[in-house]
């Protein structure tokens, strides 16, 4: 028998699949359902400093081998978000990750402090949303110095282990990961969606997304995500959650061989629905049995020299 359980900083995950942020994470009951469908851990949609409706629809459009989205960081008020998060932590057996964002370094600290009251297993700083340029300036995660400042600010405000989620839209993602690690990040999550990208409807000559541009996710970005995780693994000593285009157990193996301890699953829900979590686990076990692996740790970083 193979053992696909894993551990993130001592927190046990019964399997390495993690529901990625922004997918099915609006409500506690939805997250609970995903956990019951087999996810090893679940991430609640990013909580921000104030209520936001996000961008007008359309906010998603399917493209070849992937999805463009510009949901626009919608979230209820902090009070209501906190209530939903408390419910999720209370009712869900799997570890709950609370994603969050701020508009300033200070706000990242404030929101982190607030959501920590709900005692999620981890908090995840979303410093990498690609859809917020006009209002929020370039994603914080494109600058190592700002990444470090946010990490430090958050670490001073909470004892809950901190995941820093990175954007791939940088020249040197390893240096950003290192900056986060040096400032005290406990885990790196990589990557957020690519781009932004764009899809134009040619009959009407109009951009499809109301925001015009949207982050690219899905199979198309998997090789890019695998490369990012590989580079980050070489640069840091903290665990990595590898996210980006994982659809199958084989994809999960590849991501772990690049260096991931756990793997995020998001857009694959579009293609394989909620059963994607248990199916990925089954495929992962099948691969491990066939190739003589007994523990998930044996896969981690195996592609490195």
């Amino acid at each position: 028998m193979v053992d696909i359980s894993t551990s993130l900083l001592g927190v046990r995950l019964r399997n390495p699949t993690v529901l990625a942020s922004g997918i099915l994470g609006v409500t506690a009951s939805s997250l609970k359902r995903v956990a019951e469908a087999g996810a090893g851990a679940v991430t609640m949609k990013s909580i921000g400093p104030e209520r936001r409706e996000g961008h007008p629809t359309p906010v998603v459009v399917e493209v070849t081998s992937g999805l463009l989205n510009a949901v626009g960081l919608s979230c209820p008020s902090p009070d209501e978000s906190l209530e939903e998060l408390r419910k999720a932590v209370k009712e869900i057996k799997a570890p709950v990750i609370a994603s969050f964002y701020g508009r300033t370094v200070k706000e990242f600290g404030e929101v982190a402090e607030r959501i920590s009251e709900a005692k999620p297993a981890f908090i995840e700083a979303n410093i990498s949303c690609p859809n917020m340029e006009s209002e929020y300036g370039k994603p914080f995660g494109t600058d190592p110095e700002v990444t470090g400042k946010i990490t430090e600010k958050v670490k001073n405000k909470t004892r809950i282990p901190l995941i820093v989620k990175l954007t791939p839209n940088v020249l040197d993602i390893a240096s950003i990961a290192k900056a986060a690690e040096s400032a005290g990040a406990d885990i790196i999550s990589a990557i957020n969606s690519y781009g932004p990208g764009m899809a134009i409807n040619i009959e009407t000559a109009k951009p499809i997304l109301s925001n015009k541009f949207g982050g690219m996710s899905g199979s198309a970005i998997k090789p890019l995500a695998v490369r990012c995780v590989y580079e980050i693994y070489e640069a840091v000593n903290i665990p990595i959650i590898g996210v980006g285009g994982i659809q199958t157990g084989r994809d999960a193996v590849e991501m772990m061989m690049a260096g991931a301890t756990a793997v995020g699953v998001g857009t694959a829900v579009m293609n394989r629905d909620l059963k994607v979590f248990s199916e990925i686990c089954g495929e992962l076990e099948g691969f491990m049995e066939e190739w003589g692996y007994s523990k998930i740790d044996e896969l981690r970083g195996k592609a490195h020299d």
Partner: protein
Amino acid sequence: MGAPDIVRILKVKDETPTVKTFTLDKKMAAKPGQFAMLWIPGVGEKPFSFSSLKDKAEFTIREVGAFTKKMFTLKKGDLIGIRGPFGDGCFRIEGKKVCVAAGGVGIAPLRPIIDELLKGGRELTVIQGASTVDELMWIDELKKKKLDLLIATDDGTCGSRGSVCDVLHNLLDKGEIDQIYTCGPEPMMKVIADLSLEKKIPCQISLDRYMKCGNGICGQCCVDPSGKRVCKEGPVFTAEELKDSEFGRYRRDASGSRCDI
């Protein structure tokens, strides 16, 4: 998920002073109760149930907000985007003595199931409720079919004065209805659902929630406490499935905040 297909509007028909039917140049293999996302470039994208599946896709829409206001300016020959059909949870053909209870424009998603139910030679009663006589729809069409039509209006200008719920209540007291289908304002559907549970008569409900992706990944339309997605496991649920849920109590807006119903 897909991307919107761009199609021409073949016909726009005024149904009532506030409701129009749009026929699109698109054939879709949809089932009764399913919906599609309609996109007006530069305005938005919203979910609408099919009101006819006979030939071309048809949507019967009431003007309620910015999107439908713009929709009402569209004419024959204009272009619109469509993706779908969505909703694995469609109306299921059940029962022998069946009642379809519609409130307002809620008759629209029920229209395709009425034809399906009649195919099996069932005894069918349709209750249509509206605020006033001018807001009733498809009365002539329904009268031609082999069914009992009961009408209720808030102001008593046609049929009995009062609600669909009252008419249904009377019908259940004397009849042998063994299946209920309903769509309309949520408070009405909640009363009907409770009534059906009390009388132990199965009831199928077409539920409306704020949707973003329309295809099961964003999580915006999930129902508490089951977490079921209106766009995927719905939009049709049984009264049993919605028992002790948010149904009839609250829903969520674009931000995810709860709003009372």
